[in-house]
């Protein structure tokens, strides 16, 4: 019910913003607060936003009801230096000789705000390199001015050590109405970065309803064997069997496996989550929630864990899972999927972006998402993360002008949002260009956007869609009618088409009450900071062992060890932190 309310609020906001955008388009007055549409319509660099002469009334919402996107802007003169750290990323590309220090975003911040960005360090985000480097800097007191982290424990520790600036006051003074509206819509995210009600950073805004796991299968293997997607776990077993032994790729060689499994077991794709979900265990790295008995419990304490692991062991010992899975990480799984050794794996709703886009590229074969099949005697329960959480951006307490941080957030969201035209998008966002910005604010897209796109798809009328959604709509339609085959069209189609992955999340999982959300939001039990990684290590080890040996008594000893190694304390603390009402 809370969801529904939130949804209606979002929709009304959306319509308001839509109106704002269309008004802005017709409005000749783009002087005071240029809404994004006009901002990007006129590209020449000479066209400057109003940064230099900040009118005092800028924070006031304009009279015509438009939502202010820029907030209070004061350009620094002379420019100030701010350092940040770069997560070297998979898809990010440099355009025309850009560098981490000189790119579309750094130039924009320098022009609009007088902020000169310098790079403290850069490191790979897919290995340990980035986190290790940041952690070393925490130990030695060498953190950059703008700090970007994936780890809440790091954020918490840096705060405890006095490194993180309190931005509550500058936020109140400088934040745009848009940001304030986001704060109203996603209170969890703001709680997440607050200590004692004082704001210490911005994290991604989340709405995780579309965050559940689903089953991904390539079309051609099903067709070749004349089989259907499974609706029960037994059918999944049979399908995996057929995929392993019945030569689904028709090359006459026994070179395929039934189900992809990642050595990390608990990770974003080819993980165990899907199997767990089918056995009534909401899968996520860690999930705490109130169980049927009214007590807070953890997902891997569910009795279904045994059945799920026994099932996985059956897959493994009959050769339906790669016997080498214990050394296959994401990247190797990707290779296997690309090479057509794996045709089915669990994954999140963005499967058509990665890794299944690789199958489209390699073999021109479409793969699609299916709901998690249920095991006999169990209800499917799909775990999703708490809406608090995600990447955190915060400010070093030594920075002289904390308002710079809030202004950067304003500038970022004034460019990067729903109304972004394809041109703006290709300059500021595509190929992860947005990662060149030291602060990244993203609204949850899928659960908000999908219903609007479906409406347009059903009615064939896309007139009311904002620029970015229109782009999505065009791409989805284009992929459907075969006129577009590029990876973006495919990626978007997989998510936003009717019956696509987001549809499964919202119309099946959410509508049928299958979603189980993590109870842990901003308030983290102290002990979890200390033990989370130890518990996770322990879990992976125990599960790997059971899959390899089939010895279910190991689950009992795991439960015991888990509670002994701090798990029980976590549960106890959670009862206090999140009391039942």
């Amino acid at each position, binding site marked *: 019910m809370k969801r529904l309310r939130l949804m209606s609020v979002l929709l009304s906001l959306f319509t308001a913003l839509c109106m704002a955008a269309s008004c802005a388009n017709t409005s000749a007055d783009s002087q005071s607060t240029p809404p994004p549409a006009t901002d990007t319509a006129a590209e020449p660099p000479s066209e400057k936003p109003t940064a230099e002469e900040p009118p005092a009334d800028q924070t006031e919402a304009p009279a015509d009801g438009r939502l202010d996107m820029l907030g209070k802007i004061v350009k620094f003169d002379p420019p100030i230096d701010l350092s940040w750290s770069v997560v070297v990323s998979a898809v990010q590309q440099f355009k025309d000789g850009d560098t981490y220090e000189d790119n579309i975003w750094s130039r924009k911040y320098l022009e609009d705000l007088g902020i000169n960005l310098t790079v403290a360090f850069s490191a790979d985000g897919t290995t340990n390199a980035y986190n290790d480097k940041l952690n*070393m800097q925490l130990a*030695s007191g060498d953190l950059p001015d703008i700090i970007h982290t994936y780890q809440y424990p790091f954020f918490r520790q840096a705060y405890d050590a006095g490194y993180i600036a309190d931005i509550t006051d500058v936020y109140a003074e400088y934040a745009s109405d848009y940001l304030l509206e986001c704060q109203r819509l996603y209170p969890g995210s703001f709680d997440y970065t607050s200590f004692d009600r004082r704001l210490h950073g911005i994290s991604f805004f989340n709405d995780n309803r579309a965050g559940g796991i689903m089953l991904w299968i390539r079309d051609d293997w099903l067709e070749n064997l004349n089989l259907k997607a499974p609706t029960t776990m037994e059918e999944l077993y049979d399908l995996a069997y057929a995929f392993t032994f019945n030569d689904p790729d028709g090359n006459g060689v026994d070179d395929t496996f039934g189900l992809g499994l990642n050595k990390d077991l608990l990770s974003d794709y080819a993980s165990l989550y899907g199997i767990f979900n089918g056995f009534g265990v909401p899968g996520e790295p860690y999930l705490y929630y109130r169980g049927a008995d009214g007590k807070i419990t953890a997902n891997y304490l569910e009795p279904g864990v045994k059945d799920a692991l026994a099932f996985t062991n059956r897959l493994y010992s009959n050769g339906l899972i790669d*016997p*080498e899975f214990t050394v296959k990480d994401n990247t190797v799984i990707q290779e296997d999927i690309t090479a057509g050794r794996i045709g089915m794996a669990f994954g999140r709703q963005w499967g058509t972006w990665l890794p299944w886009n690789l199958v489209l590229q390699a073999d021109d074969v479409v793969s699609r998402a299916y709901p998690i099949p249920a095991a006999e005697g169990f209800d499917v329960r799909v775990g999703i993360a708490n809406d608090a959480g995600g990447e955190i951006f915060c400010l070093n307490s030594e920075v002289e002008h904390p308002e710079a941080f809030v202004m950067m957030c304003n500038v970022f969201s004034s460019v990067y949002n729903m109304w972004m035209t394809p041109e703006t998008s290709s300059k500021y966002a595509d190929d992860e260009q947005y990662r060149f910005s030291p602060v990244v604010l993203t609204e949850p897209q899928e659960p908000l956007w999908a219903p609007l796109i479906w409406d347009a798809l059903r009615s064939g009328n896309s007139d009311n869609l904002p620029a970015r959604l229109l782009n999505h709509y065009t791409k989805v339609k284009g992929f459907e009618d075969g006129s577009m085959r590029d990876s973006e069209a495919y990626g978007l189609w997989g998510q936003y088409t009717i019956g696509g992955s987001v549809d499964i999340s919202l119309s099946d999982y959410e509508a049928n009450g299958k979603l189980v959300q993590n109870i842990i939001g901003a308030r983290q039990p102290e002990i979890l900071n200390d033990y989370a990684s130890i518990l996770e290590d322990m879990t992976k080890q125990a599960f790997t062992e059971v899959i390899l040996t089939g010895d279910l008594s190991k689950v009992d000893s795991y439960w015991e060890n888990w509670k002994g190694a701090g798990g029980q304390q976590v549960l106890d603390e959670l009862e206090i932190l999140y009391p039942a009402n």
Partner: protein
Amino acid sequence: MTGNFGVRKNQMRKYKREIPLYFLVAPAMILVGIYSYGAMAGIGIAFQKFVATKGLFGSEWIGLTNFKTLFALPDFLRVLRNTVFIAFFKMIGGIVVPVIFALLLNEVKNKFLKRSIQTMVYLPNFLSWVILAGIFVDILSPSTGIVGRFIASFGLTPPFFIGDPKWFPGTMIITDIWKTFGFGSVIYLAALTGIDPTLYESAVMDGANRWKQTLYITIPGITSTVILMTVLSMANILNGGFDQIFNMYSPSVYPTGDIIDTFVYRLGIQQTKFAISTAAGLFKSCVSLVFILASYWLADKAAGYRIF
């Protein structure tokens, strides 16, 4: 008087002559002072509730609390056991294999052949574990690796050497011996060439055959070197080999393959438990120090060896 004065003058000259020697050692002393002793001060973190902003001098001192936390960690005993197990067998293999190899090689009289074999077996010693890990991960893969295919050609199922906790420690031990035995044999080869040839001459006179000569002259001739190397290697009892294991392990082999150094790394850098991690490192250093001092004392007693 004059004589006495002369001695004093002599001594003065001698001291004066020492001055350049101080200048020679000064650069290294300064650099070592900064980078080794400077870092050693950081050991203090192990006794603190360390907060980075407060630094080493501002953080609260909490005595042995970090050590208590460390020893209470469920993984700690396991890690200690793995370390000792892996290090112990590496140590044994690291003595036995080079000795046997040196004995066999000593029998080869053809210079060219001897030289070629040496060149081959020295090679792995000079390569980093990064490279060797890359190579081993490839050749030990049960499905695609050359070793796996070799085993499979006998109709056997190749074990999963680096992914299976049962096989992992053994794989680490064998690959480590493989890397180091060639170069390790240098010292025994030297000891073998150092054996007095007249001993063999008189043995031949007494009618001893080659086997007897080996048994009664060759082996006793290198025994002191073997004892010495054994004693010295005891210092490595907690050295599981970070470079090797870090580059080859995965969570699935933690039960048998996680060693103190990798544990310290994960604890310290990945989980930002700086104090506990430093405590674990210090624990290792202390135990090692005891073993090192004991082994050098033993080496001095048993073989009259001194490091300087």
